[in-house]
């Protein structure tokens, strides 16, 4: 059976050159980079080469890179570590309403520890409004965290403008740290930390053709952070634990490749994306693009397909060998509509039919054509059995709660899932 992988926001296929670069560091050069004998120095050299390559991708200095195990860890370190280091200057944090769970749940934990958090809204395209950010700033604000690009709806923020807004608005002499979660952006679109002016930036190998198990936090020189793991001297005391050399080496290689190929790959992937975005609405009625049309990640296609449900869509796509994702409540483990779709204000019933294709450099036009051929049949099949669609065909209107529907009676045990 065909295997068409279009769920690259969750994880990319590693590049073979990345895999090759990692191989010697499993059973050949397995020394601990902190060991002083020469065998350890092989690993140490590999670690520092990787650090330089990772730094180069985002125009940082090597000593500004802290290696971690995943994007979630980098976000935890950034949010909790910076808040912990700066709390003498205040206890107020601002994040956007479309952050990844690792940022969202980090600030929720900090709230329990006495920090206050403001969540700034986004517009219908998922853009953070600069004026909302300025409004949220307070005298005791110490940290702002806004995602660079959203993996689900593809919207790319104007981080440079948001950083300027924060730096200009903060009180004279008062430092407000700006962190951005750039997991979906790095390796996909060019990112330059010096141009952006951010103080901290998260990125990960696993979504840029590198291995799982390696990620980084860029931390600008001079910005303080309190470590979240207590231990030894690794990563200059900022992240203890024996370095995962094979994956770090792979991360370095992935960054080196990305630096060379990012523009070329971006253009090719964007061409495929634009074909899907243009052609699907010609083949399927009542579908709506979620997220920004411009300033969108080159591989991101997110549509809401009315009258059908997202999990059913992706199960039938899976049966055709096409692997995608959905933001519907039923498709999530917690049975809630994605908070991203909620934040951009889409109709909840329509959002249940969201389907997310995220493309990579390994996807081909032939695969796009296959999706264009198969997907409309799948939608038709589900619509043919959808009471919402037959109601629409008969009446021309959308069904909210029709005769016989005991929405009130059943709401609690049916739809209002307890946390």
């Amino acid at each position, binding site marked *: 059976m065909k295997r068409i992988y279009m769920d690259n926001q969750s994880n990319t296929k590693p590049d073979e050159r990345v895999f090759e670069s990692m191989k010697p560091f499993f059973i050949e050069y397995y020394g601990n980079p902190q060991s002083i004998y020469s065998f350890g120095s092989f690993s140490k050299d590999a670690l520092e080469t990787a650090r330089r390559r990772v730094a180069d991708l985002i125009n940082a200095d090597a000593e500004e890179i802290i290696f971690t195990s995943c994007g979630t860890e980098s976000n935890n370190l950034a949010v909790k570590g910076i808040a912990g280091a700066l709390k003498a200057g205040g206890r107020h944090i601002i994040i956007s309403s479309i952050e990844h769970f690792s940022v969202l749940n980090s600030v929720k934990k900090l709230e329990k520890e006495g920090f206050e958090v403001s969540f700034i809204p986004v517009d219908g395209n998922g853009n953070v409004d600069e004026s909302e950010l300025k409004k949220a700033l307070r005298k005791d604000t110490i940290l702002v965290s806004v995602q660079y690009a959203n993996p689900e709806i593809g919207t790319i923020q104007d981080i440079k403008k948001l950083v300027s807004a924060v730096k200009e608005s903060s009180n004279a002499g008062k430092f407000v740290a700006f962190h951005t979660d750039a997991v979906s952006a790095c390796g996909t679109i060019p990112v330059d930390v010096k141009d952006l002016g951010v103080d901290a930036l998260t990125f990960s190998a696993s979504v840029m053709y590198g291995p799982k198990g390696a990620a980084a936090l860029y931390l600008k020189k001079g910005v303080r952070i309190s470590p979240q793991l207590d231990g030894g001297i690794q990563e200059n005391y900022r992240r203890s634990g024996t370095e995962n050399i094979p994956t770090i080496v792979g991360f370095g290689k992935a960054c080196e490749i990305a630096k060379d190929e990012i523009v070329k790959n971006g253009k090719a992937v964007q061409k495929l994306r634009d074909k899907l975005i243009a052609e699907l609405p010609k083949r399927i009625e009542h579908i709506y693009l979620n997220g920004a049309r411009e300033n969108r990640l080159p591989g991101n296609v997110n549509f809401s397909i009315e009258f059908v449900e997202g999990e059913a869509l992706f199960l039938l796509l899976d049966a055709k060998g096409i692997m995608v994702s959905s933001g519907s409540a039923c498709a999530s*483990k917690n049975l809630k509509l994605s908070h991203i779709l909620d934040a951009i204000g889409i109709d909840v019933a329509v959002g249940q039919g969201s389907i997310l294709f995220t493309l990579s450099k390994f996807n081909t036009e032939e695969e796009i054509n296959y999706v264009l051929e198969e997907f409309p049949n799948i939608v038709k099949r589900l619509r043919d059995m959808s009471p919402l669609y037959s109601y629409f065909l008969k009446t021309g209107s959308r069904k*909210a709660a029709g005769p016989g529907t005991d929405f009130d009676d059943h709401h609690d045990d049916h739809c209002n899932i307890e946390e």
Partner: protein
Amino acid sequence: MAFYSERVMDHFANPRNVGEIKDADGIGEVGNPVCGDMMTFYIKVKDNKIEDVKFKTFGCGAAIAVSSMVSEMALGKTLEEVMNLTNADVAKALGGLPSNKMHCSNLGADALHKAVENYNSKQVK
């Protein structure tokens, strides 16, 4: 292990008794589009038995499989037997459902009961 059992996937991919009955004796509907699933059941009754049953369902894999299984279990049964059918019976017949789907998508028996109640209410008049 796959998220759904083989039997769930079979009923989801090849649902039995999909459709509407134009001159149905009873119609029952549960769910809401906002929750992500909604089921409508149509029944024909003859000699106190379910002579024909059709459904239309908007929802996830589990919701569609549940509807299909309920329709299969109902066919030929007496109205009393149908009223005794529970959502748990349906889940069991499907070889189980993922725990997070037990409550949200497993409403087929409720929809069928509503269709029978709808039929009964017409008989009284």
